[in-house]
């Protein structure tokens, strides 16, 4: 079984602690059993069964909820599912929050339905997400900047989703998809990453968001403020991130990290359509209903290579080298979360393009989706990980 972590404090845990309304630990709810089952209990050697959804509903009605050892409430059946922790990384103004809001909205709207995957969101996450969604997608207003954390040792509040699909053998497969979105100011220095970005230590997937305006030859499309940031700062961010990933696993700085995948999001790509040499066809959405996923991943792989070439000639060689050699299993994706630039704090329309690609790759890398076509030389006997059983 993969390592489970609390989605809030990121502490590893193997079993929930059930607590009553006052926060005091209490016995977990269990199904009413027959006398014979009770007599068998002393002979059991395996752990007690995890409470079912029915148990959880009954417990919630009685104000008894599963929590991590530190008392953070766990979503129902959270520990029954493997968890993919996705950390968004990028400097200030890279559009991390905008991208994540559009992505989650697309997932909610059924973007993965052609793949037979449904998406649910944890209640607390949904309440917070609604504020973001309403502002960006209904009012078409720019999202406010993400405030840095000021209490050391903390992590941002995650968005927790549950993905449910059907495996090849017809059995249901589910996964917790936990997104962490932090302020860019605290994703640059190693020290800040350690103090405020604990999610990076538990992340199994990374969405590294880069704004095109930071590349030297793309300054013409830079947003206000981006031109002053410099590419070196981004390179340093990538290096620090790579070090943190390895430090979290007690690996040498040059070691291979095999349990993390990286999707590099070239955000605001709509602004690149008029830029010479930009492979405009890389900015498009997959039609998952008509194209097999394996074919789509082959295109993704090809597009990633073309985008790397484009960014290298745009003055990003050093950054790209760091990304490709230090971050685990990277692919590069052209994305426009809104389809257009903000003016006077608002968007004329919201027309996302390419938003789903990076997540599909990460889901395939983690084994929830088939990775066929993504890494031909590595792809073997089908699904990997615990969903392959």
């Amino acid at each position, binding site marked *: 079984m993969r390592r489970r972590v609390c989605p809030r404090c990121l502490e590893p845990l193997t079993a929930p602690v059930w607590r009553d309304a006052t926060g005091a630990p209490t016995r977990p709810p269990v199904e009413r059993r027959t006398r014979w089952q009770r007599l068998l209990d002393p002979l059991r050697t395996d752990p007690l069964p995890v409470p079912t959804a029915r148990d959880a509903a009954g417990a919630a009605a009685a104000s008894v909820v599963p929590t991590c050892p530190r008392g953070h409430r766990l979503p129902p059946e959270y520990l029954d599912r493997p968890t993919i922790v996705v950390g968004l990384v990028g400097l200030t*103004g890279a559009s991390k929050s905008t991208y994540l809001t559009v992505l989650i909205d697309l997932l909610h709207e059924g973007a993965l339905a052609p793949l037979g995957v449904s998406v649910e969101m944890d209640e607390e996450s949904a309440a917070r997400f609604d504020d973001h969604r309403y502002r960006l997608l209904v009012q078409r207003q720019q999202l406010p900047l993400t405030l840095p954390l*000021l*209490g*050391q040792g903390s992590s941002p509040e995650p968005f927790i989703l549950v993905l449910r699909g059907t495996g090849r053998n017809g059995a249901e497969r589910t996964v917790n998809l936990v997104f962490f979105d932090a302020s*860019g*100011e605290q994703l640059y220095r190693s020290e800040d990453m350690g103090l405020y970005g604990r999610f990076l230590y538990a992340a199994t997937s990374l969405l590294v968001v880069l704004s095109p305006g930071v590349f030297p030859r793309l300054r013409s499309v830079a947003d*206000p*403020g981006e031109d002053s940031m410099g590419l070196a700062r981004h390179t340093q961010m990538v290096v620090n991130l790579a070090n943190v990933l390895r430090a979290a696993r007690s690996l040498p700085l040059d070691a291979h990290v095999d349990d993390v995948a990286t999707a590099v999001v070239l955000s605001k790509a709509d602004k690149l359509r008029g830029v010479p040499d930009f492979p405009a066809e890389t900015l498009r959405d997959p039609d998952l209903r008509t194209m097999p996923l394996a074919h789509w991943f082959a295109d993704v792989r090809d597009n990633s290579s073309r985008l790397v070439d484009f960014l290298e000639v745009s003055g990003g060689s050093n950054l790209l080298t760091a990304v490709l050699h230090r971050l685990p299993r990277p692919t590069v994706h052209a994305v426009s979360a809104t389809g257009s630039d903000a003016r006077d704090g608002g968007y004329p329309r919201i027309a996302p393009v390419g938003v789903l690609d990076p997540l599909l790759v990460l889901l395939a890398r983690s084994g929830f989706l088939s990775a066929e076509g993504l890494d031909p030389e590595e792809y073997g006997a089908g699904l990997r990980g615990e969903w392959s059983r």
Partner: protein
Amino acid sequence: MSGRACPQALYTSASRTLEGPGFGVYAHSADWPADVGRTRKALGALVGFRPEDGEAYGVLSRGAGRVLYRAVAARADGFGRPGNYLVHLLWDEGGRLGVRELLALRRAGRFLDALPEDSAPSADLPPLRVAFADRAAPALTPDEVDALTPPLAGLLATLAAGSGSCALPVRTASGREVAEVLFVVLPRALTSGVSLSTGVREDVGDTAPVGVRLTDAPARTAVAAHDTERARTLLEAASKAELAPDELADLRRLDAWLFADAWAEQDAAGLSADQVASVLESSAAPRWLGRGGNAAAALDLAAGSPAVETALRAAVDRWPAVAELVRGRVLAALLDEVFDGAAGPAELAVEVAGVGQADLCAALAGEVRRGRRIARLDRAAGLLVEQTLTLGVDLPLFRLTGQTWELALLATRREVVGDALLAQWRSSGGWTAEHGELLGHLLVADPGWLARLGDAVPVSALPPALRWAALRMDVAGVEELAAAVATGAAAGRGWALREVVFGSELPAGDVDQVLGRRLELLLVDDGWPRELAQSFARSRGGGDPPRRRRRRGDG
């Protein structure tokens, strides 16, 4: 008071800050303290703010200094994103600035609402000159006094507790800014340890003992939960343009300022120790102490209440009349102790009154001259008498005490007393029964007094005195006194034999022993020719003189 140059710091989100793009410290003065923080991480919760709140401000303590700050929602940052805010912080190293200055800075718009147009990140921001805020009595209507009384009472209760926090409404129903009024009405020194913040704050490392939170809807506290008299009186005084002096640093002194005149109308029995201290600190102290038993009560209270002791000492120093009054009370109590054996004043009272040895000795003499007598001339009283005479004070010994024997012993044993008695005896002139009584006791104590007094004693007064003394002496004493008479100025009258030896009424055997040893002397004193007396005495033989001791202890 002059103003202070305060280092300042600015925190916001911009395309460039001292910490890079995004949120960070945008600028700070060169002497902005590193302890408070020059980075987002070090400043921590101090720069936390929810832009949707619009504004937050406060003052807090960090060690000996104070941080004054205001956070305000700002326009889009350098990346064009909404949700930005600006925190403007000021540092007062001496900790002299307080809530009044915070509110004055905010009122005057001296906290920045946005970065100046042409500004750039800087670690050399000039300090901001902050003047101490003016203090003017607020004009308050009766309704406003009513509305402000509960919050002021709550704040005063927290101040009385010495630590804790309390919530104040931002403004009254009529729109009056509560903090503006309360921190003008309260003395500056009383609120020097108070921090203030708006809304809910994270832990910002505030070391101020008392914290005030300004909230739109503070939890209601029953009016009866706090004593509102002090608050209401303070507000009513302020509405009459009477403000408590800024130097009042504690509630007791504030109470003294508010209530001392009213308390001064009551006697000590009806007042608490703190109230007594307040009265003593007020201008009513001389009048109050002079009334009834208030001075004695204040002296008693001083022993158990440092506040009363301090106030009483201050009153003694400040008011000559009080000093005289307290001194008189203490001296009277001391004299009661000396003359009558009363309990006497506490040592603290003696110290507060400043009564010294010379004062007591002089007072002792005065009292004796006025006819007062020491009831028991014990060792302590004897020492006082001796010290009085040593200091040269004219102490009349004849009227000192009714304990004549103790006086005679003291005069016999202590040279200065004996000399004084002799001098007074010689200068007194005349002869009274008191002289006769004292002479008898003196002779019992020491027959040598016969020679010391010499012609100061009329010859006619001697026989009864000799007989009185001899009657109370043992064999040796009788023999010594008889010898003194026979060899003294009154010799030749036969009193040694007839008044002393025979007057002693000793048993015949004891008389015979004395006669055996002193017969010749006694016979000569009785008028016998010396040769005949010698011959007669020799024919009787003699013996060793026995050890002298007093026969009876009565006087």
